[in-house]
């Protein structure tokens, strides 16, 4: 049984066909890394998987049924922490609003997850008082606290200063080791090589190639993948 699955998904914005029949699945505990040029449909695929966009055709299933609110966690390139809430309230918000937990229960769990990303001492700080790396770790905690069945990362380190990338990748790697099901859109090739169960190449709204990282990077089959890797590395 696949954890998260997109079946023959087509998504258009006006005349532009961004996803042209993408079938994709990730098994429980797997980490799939998606690479590809900008405009290839990577982010749109994640948004469809997170139910942020409804596909024009095809469907997304989680454990062979429709995903429920909060079951698929999403981490954004620009963090998107709620600016009017401190770190703790950001992490609590979903538990109170969606899971209907009492504030004290929500607070307890939120603190545990802030500790998990190493930010418990910053719980009362507002987003504009945290570094980019800290904000992104709070955003990860905010998604994790919902106990998602899968986590999606949309270029989670692309907006970070170079010296802040590591702390976020560390959190992502430890999540992967703990068996979280993950779909990661990234330009971090080292992360893909070391952490991914398999790597996918997307181009022009289609999945061009999928292979385990060892094969994908050493002997890519598709010409499009070869060209892209040559440019990136």
């Amino acid at each position, binding site marked *: 049984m696949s954890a998260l699955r997109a079946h023959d998904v087509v998504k258009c914005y006006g005349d532009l066909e961004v996803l042209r029949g993408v079938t994709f699945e990730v098994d429980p505990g797997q980490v799939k890394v998606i690479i590809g040029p900008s405009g290839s449909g990577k982010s749109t695929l994640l948004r469809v998987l*997170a139910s*942020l966009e409804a596909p024009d055709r095809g469907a997304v299933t989680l454990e062979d049924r429709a995903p*429920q*609110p*909060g*079951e698929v*966690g*999403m981490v*954004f390139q*620009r963090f*998107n*922490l*709620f*600016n*009017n*809430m*401190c770190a703790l309230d950001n992490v609590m*918000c*979903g538990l109170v*609003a*969606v899971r209907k937990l009492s504030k004290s229960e929500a607070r307890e769990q939120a603190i545990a997850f802030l500790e998990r990303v190493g930010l418990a001492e910053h719980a*009362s*700080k*507002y*987003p*504009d*008082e945290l570094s980019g790396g800290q904000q992104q770790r709070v*955003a990860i905690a*905010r*998604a994790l606290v*919902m106990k998602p069945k899968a986590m999606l990362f949309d270029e989670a380190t692309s907006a970070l200063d170079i010296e802040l990338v590591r702390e976020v990748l560390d959190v992502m790697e430890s999540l992967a080791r703990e068996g979280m099901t993950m779909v990661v859109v990234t330009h971090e090739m080292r992360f893909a090589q070391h952490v991914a169960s398999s790597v996918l190449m997307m181009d022009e709204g289609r999945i061009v190639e999928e292979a385990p990282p060892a094969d994908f990077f050493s002997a890519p089959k598709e010409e499009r993948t070869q060209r892209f890797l040559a440019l990136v590395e």
Partner: protein
Amino acid sequence: MTASFDSHLFWAALTSEPYWRGALLALELTAVSLATAIVIGFFAALGAFSPRRWVRSVVWTYNWLFRATPTLLQLLIIWDALPQLWSGFASSWFTPFMAAWIALSLNEGAYMSEIIRAGLLSVDPGQELAGRALGMSRRQILRRVVVPQAVRIVIPPTGNEFITLLKLTSLASIISLHEILTSAQELAVSTFKYPETLLAALLYYLVIVSMLMVLQSRLERRFTWSSGRRRRIQAPAVPAISHDAR
């Protein structure tokens, strides 16, 4: 020149019951009208984003009607014309205060809807996206995330609207609402001492507006999200509205 200034009369006017009652009435009318206008404006602003075309048309027509016509005319229509059209308004509950409240609320609501619309638009769309990713409903996102952030943007122009509205209450003197300016004019006419009586009224307006400015800066701090609450915020992108024509 100053020899002709009767400071005794000035103080007498300043502390007289018609003055402070009139000032209180102006303040009350401003406060309730602005409060009502914020409610009207909030829903009109939401309506402006509605996917339904007819809703947007209603909002557009409302904004157009109340911004394109003089406030004084609106006041006269509600006080004088409405009771002749609907007998329900020709009864004792429909006091000058009621009429002024309705007219100023409807008028101000049109301006507030534009201000609130700009405030809502100023909130980063990523905020809503993050809320949806957590599984929050549209209403929850609006209440917990978007509106609190829009409030910070909306406070300064709303302060301006309060001041405008306070001054507009003097229009209600023509529908025999006994607000501060009416009291001042009555005293001026009966004593024939204009500097003393009018300056006393001016002082009341200054005091009310000064109190508002203190309240406004407190509110702004309340809606600034830093644990130090010191963050400077850029001037909001709210369209400038000319008040002269009202």
